[in-house]
């Protein structure tokens, strides 16, 4: 019985590693902001906005929108996003890449998108 439990636990853990990428706060909020921008901003190209987190090979790539930036966008109306040029700045935002050798946290590298 104990052996069966160990096998079952191993299978579940292996399945968890294989099946899922995980849900990061910065990625989810960025995707939600991207969906909001797509519905508010005329001509907004959602596929050009990077909301992915990747780590490896000596560098880490963060979503183009920071957590506070995404929260700000998600809290604004369409009229405000258009009137304050958030649409344009978000369209131009680039993913933040942090190299392993750098000493900064990376937070200061996010472009100011939302007023």
């Amino acid at each position, binding site marked *: 019985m104990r052996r069966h439990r160990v096998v079952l636990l191993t299978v579940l853990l292996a399945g968890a590693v294989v*099946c*899922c*990428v*995980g*849900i990061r706060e910065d990625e989810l909020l960025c995707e939600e902001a991207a969906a909001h921008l797509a519905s508010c901003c005329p001509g907004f190209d959602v596929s050009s906005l990077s909301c992915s987190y990747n780590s490896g090979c000596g560098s880490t790539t963060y979503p183009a929108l920071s957590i506070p930036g995404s929260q700000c966008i998600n809290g604004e109306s369409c009229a405000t996003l258009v009137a304050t040029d958030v649409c344009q700045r978000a369209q131009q935002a680039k993913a933040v890449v942090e190299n392993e050798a750098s000493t900064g946290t990376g937070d200061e590298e996010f472009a100011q998108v939302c007023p």
Partner: protein
Amino acid sequence: MRLPSTPFVFAVLLVSARAAADEPAAPAPGAPAAAPVGNRFSLKVALGGDYRSLYGVPIYGGDAHLFIGAEMGLFAVYGTAGLTIATTQYGLATTIIDLGCSFERRFDRFTLGLPLRPSYLRISRVTTSGALDSLGVGVAPFVGFDLLASEGHVLFLAASMNLDEYLVGSTSFAWGPTLSIGYRDDEPP
């Protein structure tokens, strides 16, 4: 993700519940003979409206759950399977699949229950064709009320609070209520 086929899971739950329902409770040695309390097969289906909050992102949707198990006097134990189809505030498609068990206690027309369940959460991305997904564990304590009951057929309402911790990658906590209406079929004693 490759999950066991749904018919297979339901078949296992059904066989287990039938076996439990067929086994009478054994009296304690030396105890006076009590009135026998037979285990009865029980089945529930429920449809609900859901709200979840994940990192402050609101998620709205509907769910369907199947419960197959046995009633033992005032207690009941079920195997459960559920599917939730939802969307975030700004339209990210969200799916939750859960499989687990539920322990319940009847109080006349009220029921208190504690489902325990592993679950799989998937939220589609809008910037790519991929998705954010994770496996988690959770509980969903609920209170139910039998609206109508007749000869083992029961129409009930239930209110539950879903508390799920998703564990893959960075851990994330999702919570929110569900309001359900359902049908319960209890095998006659």
